[in-house]
């Protein structure tokens, strides 16, 4: 059976990865170079199909090169957050008791500082760069995932199939890994794909506040720098914004598709 969302989502994500990979070939020059008149509209000059920004840089080149940094920020930070969050959440939810208490209080320690503020403070301490932005986004991302995973585990560990595994003497880690985790996967996948998009958007918001990395081109940075032209040259924001939207859409479809594929219970009878 062909699953359309999975295919479309997969294709979009593949295309993005291809874009990021091929940026150096298609646009070999430094995408930050000022190459033309500033604020050329898309289509006005065939050499710059997506127009130029306020400094006269090629937006198309920016989209391709920006895909690299933006995807890296999205994927690396969410993988880190997802890995840590799942580990903590699973152990806490399954073991319960003191372990749960301890882990949850630690996660609360991170959660208790308002997320966006924590990111801003971390970026002020370490000065904004791609590395510090990724670090900051993962640090604030994991407790939420831990809580979600824990919630799933608390419910699932009481189910009959888990109880019966325990009765036949399966070890804790084995039950968690083979029995509970697959059942918790749907929520995990959905929040994982959302996390990637969130991270990319978060970077855009930081750029809007002037906390982006000025030495690297990202979609968020392009959107942030274009806010001056929001009214008069809206394409400067709209083009990278659209790239972001398509990315989020692709990730979401991919998440949904994988969800359907991996979770036979979720399918309606």
């Amino acid at each position, binding site marked *: 059976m062909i699953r359309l969302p999975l295919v479309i989502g997969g294709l979009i994500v593949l295309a993005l990865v291809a874009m990021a990979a091929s940026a150096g070939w298609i646009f070999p020059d430094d995408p930050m170079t000022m190459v033309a008149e500033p604020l050329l509209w898309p289509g006005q000059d065939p050499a710059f199909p997506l127009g130029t920004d306020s400094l006269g840089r090629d937006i198309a080149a920016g989209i391709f090169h920006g895909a690299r940094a933006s995807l890296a920020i999205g994927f690396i930070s969410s993988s880190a957050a997802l890995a840590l969050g799942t580990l903590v959440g699973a152990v806490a939810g399954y073991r319960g008791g003191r372990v749960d208490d301890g882990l949850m209080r630690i996660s609360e320690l991170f959660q208790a500082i308002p997320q966006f503020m924590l990111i801003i403070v971390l970026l002020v301490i370490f000065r904004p760069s791609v590395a510090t932005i990724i670090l900051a986004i993962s640090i604030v991302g994991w407790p939420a995932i831990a809580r979600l995973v824990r919630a799933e585990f608390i419910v699932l560990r009481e189910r009959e199939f888990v109880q019966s595994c325990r009765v036949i003497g399966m070890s804790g880690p084995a039950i968690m890994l083979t029995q509970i985790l697959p059942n918790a996967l749907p929520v995990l996948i959905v929040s994982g794909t959302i996390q990637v998009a969130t991270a990319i958007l978060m970077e855009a918001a930081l750029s809007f506040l002037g906390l982006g990395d000025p030495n690297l081109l990202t979609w968020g940075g392009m959107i942030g720098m274009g806010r001056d032209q929001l009214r008069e040259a809206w394409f400067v924001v709209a083009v990278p914004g659209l790239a972001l939207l398509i990315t989020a859409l692709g990730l979401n479809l991919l998440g949904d598709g994988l969800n359907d594929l991996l979770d036979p219970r979720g399918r309606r*009878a």
Partner: protein
Amino acid sequence: MTPRARRIARFLARRLAQGVALLLCIAVLDFALLHAVPGDAADAIAGEAGTADPGYVATLRHQLGLDQPLPVQLGLYLGRLAQGNFGYSFRYGQSVASLILERLPATLLLMAASIGFAVAASLVLGTLSARFANRWPDRLITLVTLFFYATPLFWFGLMAIVLFGVHLGWLPTGGMYDVARPRTGLAFALDVARHLVLPAFTQACFFLAIYTRLVRTSMLQAYGSDYVRFARAKGVGELRIALRHVLRNALTPLVTMVGLNLGTLLGGAVLTETVFSWPGIGRLMYDAVFQRDVNLLLSILVLGSVIVIVANLLVDMLYAALTPAVELR
């Protein structure tokens, strides 16, 4: 006392004790974090002034107590906190408590309106999505909520201002109320409501997509579960299944997520507050970071932590209520 009530009381007592200990850790962590930031309030004020001789900076630093050793500053801060005294804002030259009280209602109103709207809308949209899974209503809902989600909040907000405030003239472009009008009675409430529409909707868009996805996913899961099949086999009506079994099950992740968002209550709206000139606490906190207004910042952070701890406690209790199998321990 029934055994259940006793259990709940024990649970609450323990969590409360933990909460206080946690709060102390957070207060110290916050303090350390903020003092790891380069530069202090004297630098910020002198920097704003455009110029200052070293004598001025030294006077300022002494005046603000920033020339004392860090452990002394930490001790003074914890001592003040224990008495419930938030201290004095370096920048505004006014008590921190009064500053916070002045700005808190705006943020609470904005967050309550936006989260409330997002929860209500996501339950409807998520249920529809799940009911028509993988058919066009589902696809449409996904696309629309995703569009709202993936559009940068500041862009969406600014465009909404230009459209509704400038071109259509239906709604005010910013602020919380009309300064020129009397601030009493129904007229004032309506005025605030008019000002609230755009920022609340903009802020809600951010939550809406996530909530809707969560509701959809967990409802699909619930529909596929054995007990729904069993209920169906027993001949329970669809509506009853949806409300009694499915929705209830689907609420768990939603409650978690809302709980998490309550935690970001104070700082989460900084972009919305910036774009809509909403006089909330997010912007106050944001500005305080860049002004190194440590007293103000620490107080808001600690207050935020109290909210998170309480929110988490409530979420855990709600779990127990929603899922009978889970007990408070």
